[in-house]
């Protein structure tokens, strides 16, 4: 099955009958929409001369100050607004960084699995992605070192490590404190640049945010941030925090791409941070996501057939599920569509064709009752697929009595059978 077929199967997701555990859409309706609406209205009616005008390529200075306040929550206390470049979502930030650093053929190290939107950017830049194993504690430092040594031995130029340390997309896991230290130490040892992509860091359910990698090292880490999960993805406001020499290149690149990020949405975010209780709003979001995460994990525990395993995220949007041996999430997708449940097959999160036995489940958008129904449907799909494999997996075609090319035997045998056709014809 090719990607166009997967896309085709996805088109049913827009129908309300389908429980979508596929998309990673934040629950924006939990925002105080009236307050945000009048705030944005005032920005146009009261400040249209600025908010509807071109702005600076690097982004609005006031917003960049507020971004530094946000990053301080994750331990980045030394960032200067001059090191911040505002981007059209952190996706554009990732694209800019990739353009600045990558030449065709360069190697990028990334977790296995990795964010599908990043893999797309890396592919467009003709980079070679080498995956590095992770487990429930995030990226494995020993695996990273092994990869670095292997690349060095092969003469491959590793340009950077791309990592999502918190509530990973799609794996749902978080890089632990000791591993953060170990990875920073490896970066020093191997002269490695790290791209820390952190859209979910403030969405933890159990504990305060873990100090960012960037908080531990300010010249080997470029940090990507986003308001898509803490405020609104529709505004498309993200940022890059980079050392000044890199920042300059990023600004030139963004000016070439979009001239400047949209003024209105930057003002909207800055005004939101200035006037609305945004920290409390993040708590509202996390409570809502925690409830949905619980619904997902409880239903999976109760319903999934033996042999299925999954991660237990303590923040963010995603559960990463591994199917029983031999099952393929992509090939199973038509059955899921017929059962009116959607997920993202794991293969899309790898650059090298791995991941067939995995799927990503997003719990951020559907209500808990819908999640429970979705998992019920998914469990039935997996069970049916298991039955199918039980039927066919043990077939030993080597023992077949007669294998001959078409037409080599008796020429016309008539229909060997045609199930119910006799009744219907």
């Amino acid at each position: 099955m090719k990607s166009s077929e997967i896309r085709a199967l996805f088109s049913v997701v827009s129908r309300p009958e389908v429980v979508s555990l596929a998309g990673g859409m934040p629950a924006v309706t939990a925002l105080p929409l009236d307050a945000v609406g009048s705030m944005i209205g005032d920005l146009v009616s009261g400040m249209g001369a600025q908010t509807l005008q071109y702005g600076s390529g690097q982004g609005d200075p006031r917003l960049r100050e507020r971004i530094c306040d946000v990053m301080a929550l994750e331990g980045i206390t030394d960032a200067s607004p001059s090191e911040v470049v505002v981007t059209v979502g952190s996706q554009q930030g990732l694209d800019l960084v990739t353009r600045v650093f990558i030449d065709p053929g360069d190697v990028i190290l990334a977790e296995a699995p990795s964010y599908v939107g990043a893999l797309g950017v890396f592919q467009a830049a003709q980079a070679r992605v080498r995956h590095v194993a992770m487990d429930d504690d995030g990226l494995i430092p020993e695996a990273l070192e092994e990869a670095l040594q292997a690349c060095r031995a092969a003469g491959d130029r590793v340009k950077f490590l791309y990592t999502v340390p918190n509530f990973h997309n799609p794996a749902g896991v978080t890089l632990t404190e000791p591993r953060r230290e170990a990875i920073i130490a490896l970066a020093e040892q191997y002269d490695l640049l790290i791209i820390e992509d952190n859209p979910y860091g403030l969405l933890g359910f159990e504990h305060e945010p873990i100090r960012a990698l960037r908080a531990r090292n300010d010249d080997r880490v470029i940090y990507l941030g986003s308001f898509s999960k803490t405020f609104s993805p529709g505004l498309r406001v993200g940022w890059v925090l980079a050392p000044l020499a890199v920042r300059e290149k990023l600004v030139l690149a963004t000016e070439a791409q979009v001239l400047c990020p949209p003024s209105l949405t930057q003002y909207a975010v800055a005004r939101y941070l200035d006037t609305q209780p945004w920290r409390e709003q993040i708590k509202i979001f996390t409570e809502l996501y925690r409830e949905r995460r619980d619904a997902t994990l409880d239903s999976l525990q109760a319903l999934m057939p033996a042999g299925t395993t999954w991660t237990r995220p303590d923040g963010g949007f995603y559960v990463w599920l591994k199917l029983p041996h031999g099952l393929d999430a992509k090939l199973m997708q038509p059955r899921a569509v017929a059962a009116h449940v959607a997920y993202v097959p794991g293969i899309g999160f790898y650059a090298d064709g791995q991941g067939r036995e995995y799927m990503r489940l997003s719990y951020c958008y559907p209500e808990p009752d819908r999640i429970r129904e979705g998992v019920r449907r998914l469990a039935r799909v997996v069970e049916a697929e298991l039955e199918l494999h039980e039927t066919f997996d043990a077939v030993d075609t080597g023992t077949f009595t007669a294998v001959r090319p078409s037409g080599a035997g008796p020429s016309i045998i008539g229909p060997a059978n045609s199930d119910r056709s006799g009744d219907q014809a």
Partner: protein
Amino acid sequence: MSEPAPTAVDTAARPAHPLRALVLAGGLTFEREVSLSSGGQVMEALHRARVDAELHDADAELLPGLSAHPADAVFIALHGATGEDGALRAVLDLAGVPYVGSPAAACRLAWDKPAAKSVVRGAGLATPDWVALPHSTFRELGAGAVLDLIVARLGLPLMVKPASGGSALGAQKVSRVEDLPAAMVSSFAYGDTVLVERFIEGVELALSVVDLGEGPEALPAVEIAPESGVFDYTSRYTPGLTEYHAPARVPDDVAARAAEMALAAHRALGLADLSRTDAIVTPDGEVHFLEVNVSPGLTETSMFPMALEAAGYELGDVLTRLLTHRAGSTR
């Protein structure tokens, strides 16, 4: 556009006001994306033809909407189960809503590929040997033993495909016996019965039939030459990946036999208004029936519109004539 020529059947029933059409597209099937694309093309063509047309999904709002704002006729651009298995048409019949296309019972027959193959073979047309079996048969009798028999009887290569459904979803050519179990697994994900067919090497033709009120007419055959060699979902709907030749580059006598086959299949299955038969021409010039579509794709890369164009028809004009013909007449 030119005004559709009135025919004896529809003159009495023709509405006095300008034609009001409802185009159905979307549906909750594997082919939703294709259907939405077909629906978009149909809407564009009808608007160019200045027909008052509205686009609607096949959902819970359809029947109340039709009841509140009756359409003169419905055009079904749904692909996959809802639109092609006859169920929706049976409901439209119950509601007394006129629609373009084949009646419910004929759709049910055409939708069931093995059943349709039996009918066309019964009508004397060539179709590759096949067997169609549900998963339960393999489970109960042992998949190895059954597959062994299939291979012994039908040989290799084989085509493995879901017994119903279009756009080549779940269809695979199997050349090596060791690939057969996996192909069965992936085809069964689309439905409970799988059709295994002897693979016929040759030129693939799409044979469109349209009936504008004067009986079924075969349109020029469209020859399909996918760059990859396999006319799968991607080759079908990605512009540029498949070369089409309309009319097909086949000798006149082959083209004539292909046209006869499409008409014979259309009649044998009791189809109406429009259909598209997929066929293979072997190097010796024999035409083999593969399957028939009662709701042929109408996307920008679909063969039915190409055939219309090759015959000198305008899509909008043909759709208008079909809708006008059906307007006011229920079945």
